[in-house]
């Protein structure tokens, strides 16, 4: 492949420039087949080029997962697949929400590249142990877990952890090492990962999930049960310490006071339920309606929070009132400690499956995390089965029991069947796309998915076209451009008509790259909801570079182009960039009633392609686009030598 290996170029550099601040300076390579772990250097130039997180992960996939001389790619379940667990330059610093983990791999749902993020203390503990990222390759013969305590890096026997859920795994590892709380950061898979459920996630630090595209199945296939990182003892430097602290304070000020971030600051994602229901974006009973079946005033954020006893459980250096531990006050699960559901939990384990019982939903949400099942896809599968049962497309005999709308107990039974691949759960564990295509007929028409195969987020995207377009076209198979944040900074209009396909496409294309930049820094997507200028300032102060918004966007788009090239190499072309029949249908009631995305779809995709500078027919980034991004090597790989 064109770019040289990181280790090679790092050692080649003569009179190497000093390492930028804030980097640990080493990558940890873990070969499960050979049971070997070693540290690899990476050069200051590569740090500037790739940053970390998805920027680093994308290039590693591009370089290390190709087959047939770059024409093909290894499958998700091949030992040569890489599982990159990366953090970034801001991780471990006093900037809010900087414990982040970005997982980059060939995912099990699309069998193409993915990038999915979680928070907690992974990034903090890893950086203070002296590593910027972990690159896992090969496949272990026996179940193992990776233990990191500064320079002690070992693959250890994980037999005693088998079939334990993710919380139990963290507790058992804490007990085994005599450490608790953030002294030991643990990211693990539960039974769903062990049993290769295609939408298995990687879960860590009680409530943080890298959930998308089956990264937990990849970990399961590699027989890696967990990664446990002791709070390291190394020092991190900054080029300008006061500058980092000042940028951190400015970011915090933005988050506390900016209208678009303030509600997140106060209540995390809880306000999503009521706000999105007013816009026709709350997924209700598998998109069979868009009208709430329950009094939404009881779903206001303060009520959701006050309905439980709770405590803050923030990630590294974070001041958001976001992550919380809560205790269920009444009902069957009284007294259980759970993670306060995100909006996505209230939708996936709640509205999408017709549930009202908030205590039950909260419990089921953590059960998904414990099993390591992506809560979005669980919602799409469970709601689909519920609708199919109601309509007789999946019979009681097929499923083994009756599953009605809102039945939390039944949903939990389904979760168990999926995570252990029992009965019909074996098929459902393939995800709603594959399950629906296998069942076919009327059942297939009810299923919510993209033809790429990964899970849409927990919305009714028939009222949120930007995310539908983004999810369907993404190089990662899931949300790639992300939500519009401070778009004026990028010269984009601050308001658009949500059902004007052309405007929607321009916006989705216009912000492409910002999310890749965020996901390479080691910062949370929520605490990155500040102006990019602030993020660049924090990065500059930390590293000593002069990093600008232009460079950030170019970096992001470069990363997107690399990921897309891997996706194409995996055989996933533009033909699959479509919603399923139900996903792309027209709401017949509610706030988005009659808004038909299907009528504008082709035009939207066309516009998007023109705006991002990709070739509509082959899906490839155009040579000019690549040249502008300074990716001449990729242009040569994709289009051949210059004519």
């Amino acid at each position: 492949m064109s770019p040289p290996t990181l280790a090679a170029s790092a050692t080649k550099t003569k009179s190497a420039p000093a390492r930028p601040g804030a980097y640990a300076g080493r990558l940890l390579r873990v070969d499960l087949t050979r049971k070997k772990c070693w540290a690899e250097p990476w050069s200051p130039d590569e740090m500037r080029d790739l940053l970390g997180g998805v920027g680093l992960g994308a290039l590693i996939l591009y370089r290390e997962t190709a087959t047939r001389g770059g024409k093909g790619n290894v499958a998700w379940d091949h030992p040569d697949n890489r599982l990159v667990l990366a953090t970034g330059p801001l991780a471990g610093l006093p900037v809010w929400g900087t414990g982040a983990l970005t997982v980059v791999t060939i995912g099990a749902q699309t069998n193409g590249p993915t990038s999915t993020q979680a928070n907690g203390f992974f990034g903090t503990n890893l950086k203070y142990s002296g590593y910027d990222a972990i690159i896992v390759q090969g496949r272990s013969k026996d179940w193992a877990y990776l233990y990191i305590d500064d320079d002690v890096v070992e693959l250890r026997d994980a037999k005693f952890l088998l079939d334990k859920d993710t919380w139990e795994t963290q507790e058992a590892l804490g007990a085994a090492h005599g450490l608790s709380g953030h002294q030991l950061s643990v990211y693990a898979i539960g039974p769903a990962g062990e049993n290769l459920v295609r939408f298995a996630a990687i879960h860590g630090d009680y409530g943080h999930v890298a959930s998308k595209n089956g990264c937990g199945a990849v970990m399961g296939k590699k027989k890696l049960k967990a990664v446990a990182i002791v709070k390291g003892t190394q020092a991190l430097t900054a080029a300008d310490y006061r500058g980092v602290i000042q940028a951190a304070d400015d970011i915090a000020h933005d988050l506390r006071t900016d209208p678009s971030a303030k509600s997140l600051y106060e209540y995390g994602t809880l306000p999503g339920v009521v706000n999105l229901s007013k816009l026709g974006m709350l997924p209700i009973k598998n998109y069979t309606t868009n009208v709430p079946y329950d009094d939404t005033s009881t779903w206001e954020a303060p009520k959701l929070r006050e309905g439980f006893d709770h405590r803050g459980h923030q990630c590294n250096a974070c001041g958001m009132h976001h992550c919380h531990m809560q205790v269920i006050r009444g009902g069957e699960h009284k007294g259980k400690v759970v993670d306060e559901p995100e909006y996505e939990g209230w939708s996936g384990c709640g509205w999408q499956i017709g549930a009202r019982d908030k205590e039950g939903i909260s419990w089921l949400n953590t059960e998904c995390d414990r099993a390591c099942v992506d809560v979005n896809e669980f919602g799409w599968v469970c709601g689909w089965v519920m609708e199919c049962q109601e309509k007789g497309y999946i019979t009681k005999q097929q499923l083994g029991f009756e599953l009605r709308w809102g039945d939390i107990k039944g949903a939990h039974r389904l979760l168990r069947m999926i995570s252990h691949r029992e009965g019909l759960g074996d098929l459902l564990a393939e995800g709603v796309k594959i399950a629906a295509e296998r069942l076919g007929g009327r059942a297939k028409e009810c299923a919510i998915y993209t033809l790429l195969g990964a899970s849409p987020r927990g919305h009714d995207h028939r009222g949120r076209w930007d995310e539908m377009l983004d999810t369907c076209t993404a190089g990662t198979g899931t949300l790639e451009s992300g939500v519009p944040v401070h778009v004026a900074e990028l010269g984009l209009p601050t308001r658009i008509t949500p059902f004007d396909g052309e405007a929607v496409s321009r916006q989705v294309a216009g912000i492409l790259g910002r999310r890749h930049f965020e996901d390479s820094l080691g910062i949370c997507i929520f605490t990155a909801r500040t102006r990019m200028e602030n993020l660049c300032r924090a990065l500059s102060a930390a590293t000593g570079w002069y990093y600008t918004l232009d460079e950030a966007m170019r970096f992001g788009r470069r990363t997107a182009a690399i990921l897309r090239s891997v996706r194409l190499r995996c055989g996933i072309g533009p033909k699959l960039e479509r919603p399923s029949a139900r996903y792309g249908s027209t709401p017949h009631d509610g706030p988005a009633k009659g808004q038909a995305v299907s009528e504008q779809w082709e035009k939207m995709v066309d516009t998007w392609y023109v705006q991002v500078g990709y070739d509509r027919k082959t899906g490839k980034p155009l040579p000019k686009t690549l040249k502008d991004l300074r990716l001449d090597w990729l242009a040569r790989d994709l289009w051949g030598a210059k004519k």
Partner: protein
Amino acid sequence: MRILKIMPEKCTGCLRCEIACSYMQTGTFQPAKSVIRVSPFEGHTSYAPYTCPQCAEGWCMTACPVGAITINAAGAKDVLDDTCVGCKLCTIACPYGTMFYDPDTRKAFKCNLCGGDPACAQACPTAAITYDDVPTVDWLGDFAAERTTRLLAGVR
């Protein structure tokens, strides 16, 4: 005298105070060398910071055989690096476990209230640590007792 008042029930365990403190103490970000330490309680559901309460008795000062511990302008007991011989007696004398020894510098180190502008109090996003003119009390005793015997409020 102004001291660090600690309200453990406000702490979310974000560890920002440790990062800020380590910068003041060492000039780099290195929480392992912070002199404020956040401990977990109830497994993983609660956290509380803890640092030297600047006790009136000043056991560390009394114990030091070379007189390396003085009282600085902010009223905090402070280790004089030039004088400290690294014998660790102070770490044994302190009943609160808030005097530390750094094997890299071979000196004792402790909270010196950052000379009167404590970084931890500035850094804490939830105001779980404030710099106030209040009498020193046992901020953590009841909290620790309660939170090691039962889980979150309302639950036995």
